[in-house]
């Protein structure tokens, strides 16, 4: 019958179930029994202690009482990979569990598992040209490693050398710098041709502590995302309006709630009522302390018929590193509320929802990630006195010796949810205000004469 149908597919499925920890699966009782016994067996193997009698037997017998004989013959049934109608039925009958997902999906999972069982590692694939190429590349890598060794030894020698011998301290420093750059280059070159590195990077499994993955990520960022960011910076005139110059070196991903926001995108006011979440990927090693500042540069001033700036948010002393990229501002706010220590708080000016009066042109809100000099903490208590209205980013950056490493920007305009947002933000008096363009009176009519033609 179908109960005795050994196939590689099923074995691989079994392996899969055994490997998953018992706590993950919370199915029926009999299911749990199978899992528990399996994991117990595995533990025994790993411990390799000659325990007299494993505890499962009693449970096993108990379970046997529950499950009839003919049902036990059905073998292992996994809700993730069952892909035949009969097997599905049996799963539902015996385990009381519905199969997961579509049958199509389960079949694919099955096949993948079957393929993985007898899969050769990518770099071991027996293709002659490929293997020859790998051999050549490995040889080259060895040469590069040797060159790195030689170069580091030279650097050490030079560092010990008297500056008078090497032609002055500045010349020595310059030489050291160029030698170190060369070593960095060699480190990248040693790994850049490795197909496994490329594969891992493409899979997103690259370790950002390693220079090669940082280099690859940087290249990828510069080839697409940074170009777009640069374009937005120039299109939305961030550069003269907020800061005199911007050279983003870190990748900043902005998002509100679940929605990711591309640079320059219009954000619904209901979304931007909550603090954004930031993902800042730096490509330089080491931990940094950064400040996050959100500024609006398009607040209309009716009396002067002009615009001014408004600071919506300041947070300081946020640690980031190549591996620690997330800045969850909402969570930071919650932690701030919990901490007793005032100096440990990070948010200086809490989030104020961006708003726009009806009829006003769109507001540009720039999010700056500012690196603090030498990773020194700023005094958040002092920052709390910063005035929101008419806030000047240039002065702020200048005063605290900050460096803008990352930037993102979003836009806001009047939308359906804006009235509610403004009410909640305490701007009820502005809800019903509507701005209109000044009408430019046409010049008085003048009859066209011969001369004008």
């Amino acid at each position, binding site marked *: 019958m179908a109960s005795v149908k050994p196939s590689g597919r099923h074995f691989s499925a079994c392996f899969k179930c055994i490997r998953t920890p018992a706590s993950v699966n919370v199915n029926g009782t009999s299911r749990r029994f199978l899992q528990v016994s399996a994991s117990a067996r595995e533990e025994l193997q790993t411990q390799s202690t000659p325990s007299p009698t494993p505890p499962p037997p009693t449970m096993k017998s108990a379970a046997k009482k529950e499950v009839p004989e003919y049902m036990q013959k059905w073998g292992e049934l996994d809700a993730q990979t069952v892909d035949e109608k009969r097997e599905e039925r049996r799963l539902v009958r015996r385990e009381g569990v519905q199969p997961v997902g579509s049958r199509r999906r389960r079949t694919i999972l099955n096949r993948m598992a079957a393929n993985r069982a007898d899969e050769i590692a*990518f770099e071991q*694939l027996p*293709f002659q*040209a*490929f293997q*020859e*190429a*790998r051999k*050549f*590349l490995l040889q*080259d890598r060895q040469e590069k490693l040797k060159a790195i060794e030689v170069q580091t030894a030279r650097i050490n020698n030079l560092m010990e050398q008297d500056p008078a011998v090497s032609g002055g301290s500045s010349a020595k420093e310059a030489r050291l710098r160029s030698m170190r750059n060369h070593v960095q280059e060699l480190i990248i070159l040693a790994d850049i*041709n490795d*197909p496994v590195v*490329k*594969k891992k990077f493409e899979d997103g499994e690259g370790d950002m502590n390693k220079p090669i993955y940082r280099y690859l990520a940087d290249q990828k960022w510069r080839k697409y995302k940074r170009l777009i960011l640069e374009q937005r910076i120039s299109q939305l005139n961030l550069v003269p309006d907020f800061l005199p110059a911007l050279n983003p070196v870190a990748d900043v991903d902005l998002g509100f709630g679940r929605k990711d926001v591309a640079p320059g995108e219009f954000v619904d006011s209901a979304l931007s009522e909550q603090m954004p979440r930031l993902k800042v990927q730096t490509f330089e090693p080491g931990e940094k302390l950064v400040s996050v500042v959100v500024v609006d540069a398009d607040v209309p001033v009716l009396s002067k018929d002009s615009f001014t700036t408004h600071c919506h948010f300041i947070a300081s002393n946020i640690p980031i590193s190549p591996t620690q990229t997330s800045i969850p501002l909402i969570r930071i706010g919650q932690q701030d509320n919990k901490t007793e220590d005032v100096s440990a708080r990070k948010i200086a000016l809490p989030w104020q929802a961006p708003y726009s009066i009806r009829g006003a042109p769109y507001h540009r809100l720039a999010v700056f990630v500012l690196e603090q000099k030498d990773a020194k903490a700023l005094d958040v208590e002092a920052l709390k006195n910063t005035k929101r209205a008419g806030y000047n980013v240039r002065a702020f950056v200048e005063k605290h010796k900050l460096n803008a490493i990352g930037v993102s920007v979003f836009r806001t305009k009047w939308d359906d949810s804006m009235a509610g947002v403004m009410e909640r933000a305490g701007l009820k008096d502005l809800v019903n205000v509507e701005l209109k363009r000044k009408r430019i009176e046409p010049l008085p009519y003048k009859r066209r004469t011969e001369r004008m033609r």
Partner: protein
Amino acid sequence: MNLSTFRPVFRPIGNISRLGQATVLSQNAPFTRSPTTPITSTSSFSSTANLQKRKRGGPAPDPRITSIRYFLYHPLTPRPLHFSRLRYLRHWTIHRAWMLFLRKRRRAEELDLERQYNSMRDACEHLRLLDGNGMRVSDAEAGGQGPDPGSLGVKGKDVGRIYRSAMLKRGVYGSVPIEYARAQTDFPSRDGWNHAWTRD
């Protein structure tokens, strides 16, 4: 982007030669099929409703129609080849290794040329400083080099005799002066040849 990727490709179901057979059949015996059997597919390209088409066991599509569709509408260029992921990675690896190999070979050739040039230069220098007895003289005593290899030094003709004869360019460039080795231009610079150039 190659749009042929998205163009539909109808393929004849059986052998393409069936097309020829079918036409022959229709010429010779047009009424082999019993007229009572309804042929829905002959009326137009697709009069079949979607649902009816999805059901199995519906009227089989006429192979002639399939063939006509195929030859009318199949893309002129074939679908672009795409490597699978691992295949592409292997290709990439081989390509990188080949590029690296070429670069190394080029570098080795350059270095070899440089080495040869340097050793020729050293040999010439040695000849220049050689006097009649095969002894080396100092640079001050030797004759000129570079632009004026023919000029004699303090010690006269004995020093660097072989060098001077080696530097003679008579017949080397044929009857054309060496200046013509430079690419001729409409407006040559006023000082096209730097006669004062020396290595050091």
